[in-house]
């Protein structure tokens, strides 16, 4: 079953370290059960946001590359 997205974090065209910062901000303002979708274009952040999530013990539901951007989905 597909999880319903409760929050979208738009990091399109943002450079280091803002995608990481915006993701953390969304996590801080979320509640248990929230499903957060992060989209962005900064390639290193596609590698590094999962590292931050791992450090925080948050599991990724989906991580994929789309035509113009990447997508990372995780649940709090």
């Amino acid at each position, binding site marked *: 079953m597909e999880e319903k997205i409760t929050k979208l974090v738009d990091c399109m*065209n*943002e*450079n*280091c*370290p*803002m995608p*990481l*910062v915006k*993701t*953390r*901000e969304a996590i*801080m303002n979320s509640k248990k059960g929230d499903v957060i979708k992060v989209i962005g274009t900064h390639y290193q952040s596609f590698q590094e946001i999962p*590292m*931050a999530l791992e*450090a*925080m013990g948050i599991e990724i539901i989906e991580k994929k590359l789309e035509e113009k951007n990447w997508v990372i989905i995780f649940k709090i």
Partner: protein
Amino acid sequence: MKKATIIVHSGSFDKVLSAFIIGNGFVSMGIPTSIFFTFWGLNALKKKGFKKLPLSKMNFLGLGRLLIKLKMKKYNVASFEKLAESFKKLGGKIIACTMTMELMGIKYEDLRKDLIDEYGTVGKYCYESKDANITLFI
């Protein structure tokens, strides 16, 4: 419990910016972080202080800094203001060293109260760092 402390001893644009980028990285990973400003680093906390900081290399009387600022805009790199704001918003702490404020002739009213959480000297840094597993000197 993971924790990071960063000392900013340098007062150059690029080094202070690096400290804030790294600080933002730590707090973004949920690691409590304190940045201690001492000696030349205190200049970054002065009112309109960051704007006046020179580059550590190839400053060329401010031309180098101007070029970096233009490049930062071009590549959409966050400004000092934005980085300082997000660092604080994510729970980062900024501490100013009062002993070096005296040495450098910097008064409390010269510094930005909106950025500084606490004032202290070496005891505060050591106390905070004794439980930190990461500490940087910039």
